[in-house]
């Protein structure tokens, strides 16, 4: 599995499903942390998600409903 074939390492392709499940799990945990705790670390969580090449998970943060769930969003919305 560590051999290069057609320019890529076969084992890396077979690792992709695990990688995607791990990312989904991590982003879910990050979002839960963000809506419960508002501190620098959870702000960094949100920024890290925004910096991802695949921003599918950023949609969870970037909407009004999610904003209102956070202290940051509540302040912005004047709640």
């Amino acid at each position: 599995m560590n051999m290069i074939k057609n320019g890529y390492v076969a084992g890396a392709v077979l690792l992709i499903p695990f990688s995607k499940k791990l990312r989904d799990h991590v982003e879910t945990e990050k979002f839960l942390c963000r809506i419960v705790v508002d501190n620098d670390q959870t702000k960094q969580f949100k920024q890290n998600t925004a910096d991802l090449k695949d921003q599918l998970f950023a949609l969870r943060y970037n909407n009004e409903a999610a904003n209102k769930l956070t202290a940051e969003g509540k302040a912005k919305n004047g709640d």
Partner: protein
Amino acid sequence: MPQQFISPADLINRQIPPEILDQLQVLGRIQFKPEDTTPSAVSTTGTTPDTTVADNLSGVLSHVAEMEGLSKQIEDMIDQLTKDMAIPVDPNNSTLKAAVQSLSPTGDGSTITKDIFDTAMALIDHASILTMGYDPFLAALTGDGSLKGSYLNCSDVTRDIAKTWEVAKSAPSSPSQPIADQTAKIEDNYAKQLAQMVIEILQNFFFNMLWPKYMVDLSIINPIRLMIANPLDSIICFFKNLKRGCGDRAGAFTVKSPDCLKLNGPVNKALTKFRCFLLCIPPRKLWDPTKYKPMVDISHCHCVDLQPCPPAPAPVNPGVDRDSKLGGMSNLMDSLFDASVPTCSDTLSGVPSQNAAGLGVPPQCLQNATTVVNAVVADALSPTDPTRSPGPAYGTINSPAPVSTPIPSVTEQTENIPVSNPVPVTGSTAVSNYRYWGASTQTTYDAPTITGLYYKTISNVITNNFTITVGVGEYIVYAYPSRLGDANIAINGAPGIFDAPTSLSITNTNAYTENYYVYKSTSSNLGTVNMEVA
């Protein structure tokens, strides 16, 4: 007592009572319960809490941060190891070639590159949203809100396509409505769909089996025939002097067989008509010609005379063996994935209420993506060409992502491993070979003797540390590749006394030959000693 829902907004910077944390942990909403170092907010009314929820959750946040770093490192590693992907496409495989072309219009479809593979993976990842589904979390937040975006071609969907999307404002959606309400609504819909599906399955299971026929015959018809119909018909037929006989027993004043009575007895005829009526009842109500194909033979019952029963559904394409076996299901699948067949998803005409902006892709895109991904996985699982070079060791990735907790690297093997469980030689850019050691009564050594020693490990360094027991008449023997240089061997922390090393050529199990230095202790019967090689 009315059911109450907890809004996450109410929990921000508030202490969560331990009993709620217990429930969250049981429900799987949290993995770790914070250390219960402070009493709950409920029980500490009137006292100042020492810590907040954020403090209690610091351990969880750190863990999530570590998981995030690990995830990023794995993703970067995969990107690094697949960036030069160039899988040739079999020119005779028109399906795969067309799929590759659709995902990369500028290409000729002859090679699957990393970009094409990424596009295929993005299509699969985003399939739920692209086909008008929802991310569960997003759906819970936005209610019936949707995404705004333009209609896409297959090749337009890349891993960063989500950057162009926006969540449409949804007027009814309000965070003042607890998320639990919204998720409960979604779950209710799913539950209703599931219940409907189960009912349909049970209906098909019930009425497509033969046992309704047996149930009617055994529980109602047969007992009545034996107890009532046959005796009555026998008397009637005896005195009626039937002219229409039953085989050899034709004629008047003869005993009629049950079959004869069943066909000719007036009571049995009425009973048969009643049986047909019972068997024809279920189809009248539930016989959907697109789903129900009766296995019970009721043709002789003339159900049409009793009630309007539609005929069993005919195959869509009669004469095609595949269709007859699949009952028309193949045509349904063809229509889903055939680009020439217009579908709702092609025109988006049927879904404006769900997504007015028209975000989506044809179902053919998902089919093409699946084809490409399957081809890549098949290539990855195919036997490796031995003439190709080995890949880099995983520990030598050029640009690993900075993480707070890196993946533990594989440390050098320092344990004594019996020869019966040799460490396999794996592909690596560095040359490694076995080191052998053990106790031996021999004083001269050849290759089989050395490779037959009890311990061996793969390494390309000279340092080693191990414990060995040397019995009466036995000497310590230690052999390692001579290219590693001279060794200083200590026994129990003191310089060991060894004979001058001899040189020996040894061929390992992978047919690789190399010169070795073989050290032999000058003394025997040293007991259990700790060896340090440097």
